[in-house]
């Protein structure tokens, strides 16, 4: 019994400290997507406190803010999630007059197809899924087909996500990653079945350490995770596959439920400020959509082919779009079959 009281006492005394009563902005972002000192800097500038939480998937974020009374103010959905979120009336329209740094954005991102005129969202970072590999491989991988190489059995991984796996299979077949055709999806599934015996695992960013340590020789991976692995070991390389690849864009939005719109705008504008945007991309090893920020980069980072590939490479990229419910249903069914095979 004594133990219980002891613990209670310890808990109560801990609970006594560490509370803070400044006004607070609640921000939820993808993991590893910001410079560590950006939030403290904003807190100091605005005299507020920021609750900064992270999520790992759009769905997780939507489940948490979907009720419309979650308490969050700013979140970072992917571009293809904007339309559903407008549909569910979760977003507040963006008032451009309150954002002084909006014109620093790269030209292509000022009028994107998913949100023409940026009425609801502000672009943040972009990314893409390609192949990260160990330079000891000869020849080094250059296309998706190299991930079907039997010589690498047990040393390959793919992302644990239907969009990315189907994307790679479809690209290998020369199809669009956003296809709605059942026969193409089924053909892609056959490719995945063929590949599965060669795979070590379906795994996301956590594979990074196994790539660095050499346990995994080639992996389907996001460019930002690959860049982190390359920073850690010179033996690691990255390639945008010749058949084409899947690209995505993440945005910043203000939730309709937010009671602190003023503060939320201030935060968005802060994140758009070139020095802040540059610091975020530089430390998180990501691709910013902010042209002015890019000019502030050290040359080695600005010209780095993993995060800032030349135009002939980006031409191969295909933006991820929202699929029809029927296609999502079919794709998930096919995905379950692949995984349980």
């Amino acid at each position, binding site marked *: 019994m004594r133990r219980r009281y002891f613990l209670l006492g310890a808990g109560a005394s801990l609970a006594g400290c560490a509370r803070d009563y400044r006004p607070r902005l609640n921000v939820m972002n993808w993991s590893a997507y910001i410079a560590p000192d950006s939030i403290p800097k904003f807190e100091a500038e605005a005299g507020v406190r920021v609750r900064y939480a992270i999520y790992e998937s759009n*769905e*997780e974020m939507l489940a948490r803010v979907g009720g419309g009374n979650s308490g969050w103010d700013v979140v970072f959905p992917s571009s293809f999630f904007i339309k559903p979120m407008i549909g569910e009336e979760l977003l507040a329209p963006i008032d451009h007059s309150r954002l002084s740094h909006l014109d620093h954005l790269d030209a292509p991102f000022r009028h994107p197809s998913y949100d023409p005129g940026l009425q609801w969202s502000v672009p943040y970072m972009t990314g893409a899924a390609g192949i990260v590999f160990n330079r000891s491989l000869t020849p080094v991988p250059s296309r998706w087909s190299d991930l079907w190489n039997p010589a690498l059995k047990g040393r390959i991984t793919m992302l644990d996500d239907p969009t990315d796996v189907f994307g790679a299979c479809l690209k290998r077949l020369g199809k669009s990653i956003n296809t709605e055709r059942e026969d193409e999806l089924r053909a892609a599934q056959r490719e995945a079945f063929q590949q599965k015996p060669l*795979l070590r695992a379906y795994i996301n960013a956590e594979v990074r350490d*196994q790539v660095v340590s050499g346990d995994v020789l080639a992996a389907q991976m996001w460019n930002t995770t690959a860049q982190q692995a390359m920073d850690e070991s010179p033996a690691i390389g990255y390639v945008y596959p010749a058949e084409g690849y899947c690209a995505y864009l993440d945005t910043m939005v203000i939730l309709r439920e937010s009671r602190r719109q003023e503060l939320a705008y201030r935060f968005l504008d802060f994140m758009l400020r070139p020095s802040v945007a540059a610091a975020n991309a530089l430390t998180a090893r990501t691709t910013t959509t902010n042209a002015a920020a890019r000019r502030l980069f050290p040359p080695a980072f600005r010209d780095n082919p993993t995060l800032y590939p030349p135009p002939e490479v980006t031409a191969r990229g295909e933006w991820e779009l929202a699929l029809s419910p029927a296609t999502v*249903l079919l794709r998930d069914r096919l995905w379950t079959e692949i995984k349980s095979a």
Partner: protein
Amino acid sequence: MLLLMIAPLGIVCAYSLLTRGPYGGVMRPWSIGAYGRLADPLYATILVRSFWISGVTTTLCLVLAFPLALFISRSGRRKNLYLSLVILPFWTSFLIRTYAWMFLLRDTGLINTVLQTLHVVRQPLPLLYNDGAVILGLVYAYLPFAVLPLYATIERMDVTLLEAAADLGARPWQTMLRVMLPLAAPGFIAAGVLVFIPCLGSYLTPDLLGGGKTVLIGNLIQNQFTTARDWPFGAAASLALMALVMVLLAVALRRRREALL
């Protein structure tokens, strides 16, 4: 409190009878389509696999936990200390424990490094990302769930009965088999339930240690509520699973001719 336990169940029932919304979530019309989709051999194989993995895990947990519970219950004043020590590793996060195992099992992990240094094996053994790793992870995760109820029953056991058996000439293993195990039956049942059921619904361990290459029923349901955003089907699948487990429990109870609890 009962409301808090029952109301969500009602919500799940309602979800399972609705239609998937265009962006996930649920909407009308009401329909039983989600249940229809359950009648599919694909899901039967997933179910059988899940029962197999959970069954092996539960058996291993019970076998491993019983001697430990026995040891603790015989430790006099140290009882509480040992009991706390069983629990202690589980106050560090589940995820940390799983990562610790991944760290041990990897090709360049501790076990393989030691084996290779000692020249026991030349190539690293593929320890991670298979069913063995999943079962190991599950046993590790649920072992205290088996130790605690077993301890709670054994601790209470009348030692004079065991002494009587010994006085009557029973060997230690005979005492164990004929007297102690039957007396510990309620503990075994409680432990079995506490391990088997959460095992069936688990999804993080199979994902992390199995390398996402197998789908268990927990993964299937989890996936419906996340990436697939098909809540009605996820709700229907979980209700079907719950019903199945309840029926199995009821049958197991009837055979024993006593209340489970």
